[in-house]
């Protein structure tokens, strides 16, 4: 095995960067181990010891990846900031005369930032999952998928060319599908998995077209590339030359490239109009929601935009589209969150909304701020999801907010950690969310890329207020109020049962559903297990704090949510407003990859510190206002009027009918179209004309020809004689002519 590593630095790069392969290969090894030996080990060592070993084996590769990432980050930070780019190449993967795609990793601040998030938050969630999934039927299968996901996600963020990124992109989509449908015995979960996969096809279609377009553009401008360079899809070749190469193209191509890539990002990062799959994706186990559908995979779109930001910067139109879609999604999803009664759905819409925030940042040119929000969001949203998982476990897998209440008394660790995450996402300083959110809002306010960016700031500000609001609603309904509603929950528990866990479901329709997927033995095993574990909310139910393997990750993430933002931002903007020059660590680290944030570029025309103080005040004000207003409404418990959401809230909960309209417009109409096509083309033309038609033709000819078969031997003899005579006459005729 030989790696060729190159860098912009004058001397050859440190061989320590070869270790980057370990980050990628370790989870692949973990995946193979779980897939090949998981079940066997579980059988051989028994459920207890076997699962301990498997859990350890699942966490180890991710943790190893994190350690290596930290090591590389330290080494890279020590390099000159313009040479912070190392490419390590293993073998040529696609080698054509007109295209070379090596298997190569890119190590730069942006990819290492993502690596640190994926492996760092990822290993915490892995540890959590060893506790959360401990009683699951298919423990090794879960970690097989989970490790595979980490491997693909790392390939996505570390790949140095579009094909590698695309493999990672599709791979994480596959793992997302497998994990959403992890409890496939319930048909609803399988449907949610399908929805996620199918909606993502639209995004991937755009992404693939964008790659093709880029290849076309670069392959037809070979003279601008270094002599003999065939890596038309590698980032280190195409990104520095973007402006030069695209100078020869009209606005159509220049805008089409970023917009097509953005279609991919919209699909993967669940932006309007393709966000539809993410709320349904909550059907997966809660660690999956935390890792894939909050902290890492859904931020791949933001990563892609940040990685290819040079193309976006060349087209004002694409920037405006990114900012517009981001802002609209942020506001839209924030309103929808108010209508949700399922704790995980609230968090799902919150994720969609926060992702909109990140795209808003990218759209106004503050790519660094966008990535900063990716980072802080990974901390507090993973924490919120893991906390909600702890609540769900404590509440016997009931996910309905209306059945909670006063849980702070029973699960204090979960409560205190989620409290930190709540303040972080609401944007209260000094918690992590404040710093990145404030940076995005300032970026939007001072953006010079579009006219009147203050509108975007206003949308962002309203969204910040709503975010504080719906998170307060969720927290109050879960942890506050003197009413312990689970004691009287029977009515809700059945009317609005969750699909999160097969144990939560029961009744006749289940048996019917499972029959499709399971053999008799499996079905019986499942039934036994259900009897064993089945419990529901009862007046006697006592919520209990979760096991240490689950609350330790919560605590770690709480620390990150508490100090992560302040530490990474170096207390900016306060520091520089007060005349102290503390470095903004995140920006200082990342700007070689994503450029300087608008914050610094714009500081030249920031007339007065007064406006900045006002902006900070406004963003803290939004958070305080949101928390205050909604705390007043919900602190006493569930308002009577919300036992069933009514009016606007109900409409919001139904996504302002967007999902229904989309289903009617595309799924139903598509079904009708397919049905009509089936009737006309399949039944009519293929079956009717080709299959049955040819058979009928042969039949008719046969009917005609059977008349000649009289059965009379003498008649046959006569015909043979006549035939011979005719044939002979012909022969004589042509030979004597």
């Amino acid at each position, binding site marked *: 095995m030989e790696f060729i590593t190159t860098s912009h630095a004058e001397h050859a790069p440190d061989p320590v960067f070869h270790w980057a392969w370990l980050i990628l290969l370790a989870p692949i090894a973990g995946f193979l181990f779980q897939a090949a030996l998981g079940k066997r080990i579980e059988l051989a060592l028994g459920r207890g010891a076997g699962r301990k070993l498997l859990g350890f084996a699942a966490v180890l590769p991710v943790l190893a990846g994190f350690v290596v990432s930290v090591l590389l980050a330290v080494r890279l930070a020590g390099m000159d900031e313009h040479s912070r780019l190392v490419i390590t190449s293993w073998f040529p993967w696609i080698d054509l005369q007109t295209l070379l795609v090596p298997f190569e990793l890119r190590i730069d601040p942006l990819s290492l930032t993502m690596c640190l998030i994926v492996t760092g938050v990822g290993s915490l969630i892995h540890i959590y999952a060893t506790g959360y999934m401990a009683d699951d039927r298919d423990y090794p299968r879960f970690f097989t998928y989970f490790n595979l996901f980490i491997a693909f996600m790392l390939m996505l963020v570390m790949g140095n060319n579009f094909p590698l990124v695309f493999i990672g992109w599709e791979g994480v989509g596959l793992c997302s599908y497998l994990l959403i449908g992890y409890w496939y015995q319930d048909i609803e979960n399988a449907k949610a998995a399908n929805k996620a996969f199918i909606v993502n096809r639209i995004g991937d279609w755009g992404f693939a077209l964008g790659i093709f377009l880029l290849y076309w553009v670069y392959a037809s401008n070979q003279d601008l590339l270094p002599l003999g360079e065939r890596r038309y899809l590698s980032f280190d070749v195409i990104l520095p030359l973007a402006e030069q190469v695209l100078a020869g193209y009209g606005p159509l191509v220049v805008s089409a490239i970023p917009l097509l890539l953005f279609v991919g990002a919209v699909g993967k990062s669940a932006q309007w109009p393709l966000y539809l799959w993410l709320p349904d994706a909550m059907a997966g186990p809660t660690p999956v929601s935390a890792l894939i559908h909050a902290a890492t995979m859904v931020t791949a779109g933001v990563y892609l935009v940040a990685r290819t930001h040079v193309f976006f910067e060349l087209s004002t139109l694409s920037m405006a589209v990114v900012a517009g879609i981001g802002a609209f999604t942020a506001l839209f999803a924030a309103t929808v969150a108010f209508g949700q009664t399922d704790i995980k759905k609230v968090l799902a819409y919150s994720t969609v909304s926060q992702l909109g925030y990140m795209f808003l940042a990218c759209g106004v040119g503050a790519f660094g701020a966008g990535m900063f929000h990716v980072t802080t969001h990974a901390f507090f949203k993973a924490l919120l999801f893991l906390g909600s998982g702890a609540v769900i476990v404590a509440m016997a897998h009931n996910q309905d907010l209306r059945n909670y209440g006063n849980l702070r008394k029973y699960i204090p660790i979960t409560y205190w950690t989620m409290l930190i995450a709540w303040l972080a996402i609401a944007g209260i300083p000094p918690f992590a969310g404040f710093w990145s959110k404030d940076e995005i809002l300032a970026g939007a306010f001072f953006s010079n890329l579009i006219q009147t960016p203050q509108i975007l700031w206003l949308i962002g500000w309203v969204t910040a207020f709503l975010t504080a609001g719906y998170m307060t609603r969720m927290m109050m309904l879960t942890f506050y109020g003197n009413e312990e509603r689970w004691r009287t929950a029977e009515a809700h528990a059945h009317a609005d049962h969750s699909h999160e866990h097969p144990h939560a479901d029961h009744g006749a329709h289940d048996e019917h559903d499972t029959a499709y997927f399971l053999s008799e033995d499996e079905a019986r095993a499942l039934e036994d297990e259900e009897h064993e574990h089945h419990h529901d909310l009862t007046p006697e139910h006592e919520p209990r704090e979760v096991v240490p393997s689950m609350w330790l990750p919560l605590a770690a993430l709480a620390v990150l949510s508490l100090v992560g933002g302040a530490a990474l931002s170096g207390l900016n903007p306060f520091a520089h407003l007060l005349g102290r020059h503390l470095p903004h660590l995140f920006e200082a680290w990342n700007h070689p990859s994503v450029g300087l944030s608008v914050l610094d570029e714009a500081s030249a025309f920031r007339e007065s510190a007064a406006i900045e103080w006002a902006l900070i005040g406004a963003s803290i004000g939004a958070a305080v206002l949101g928390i205050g207003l909604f705390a007043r409404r919900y602190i006493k418990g569930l308002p009577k009027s919300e036992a069933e959401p009514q009016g606007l809230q109900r409409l919001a909960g139904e996504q302002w009918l967007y999902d229904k309209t989309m289903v009617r417009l595309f799924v139903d109409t598509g079904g009708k179209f397919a049905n009509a096509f089936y009737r006309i083309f399949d039944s009519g033309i293929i079956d009717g004309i080709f299959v049955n038609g040819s058979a009928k033709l042969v039949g008719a000819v046969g009917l005609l020809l059977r*008349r000649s078969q*009289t*059965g009379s*031997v*003498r008649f046959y003899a006569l015909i043979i004689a006549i035939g011979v005579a005719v044939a002979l006459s012909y022969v004589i005729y042509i030979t004597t002519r």
Partner: protein
Amino acid sequence: MEGVPLYAYILLSALMFAIGMAGVIIKRNPIIIFMCIELMLNAANLSFLAFAKYHTAPLATTALETWNVHMTGQMAVVFVMAVAAAEVAVGLGIIMAIFRMRHGVDIDEMSSMRG
């Protein structure tokens, strides 16, 4: 060459063949049809022999080669006779079997193959 001219042989052979064919087509009794088939085969044999007799061998250089050329036509006759004998044996066997099954061998009644 003296004696019977070639065209007489051919004429007789054609006549025999025509009679045989007419018999095959007209007659309903398989025994007679067999006899007619024999007639046709023998018409062919007669042609073979006639041609063999009248055949010259311009390329032959020795007497043996000339003799060989004459013999090829005559050998064909022997083959035809052997095949005819075998054919009659098989055919008569089939006719016997049909007779046992159906108590009659009228060829027009054997029409189960009518489409």
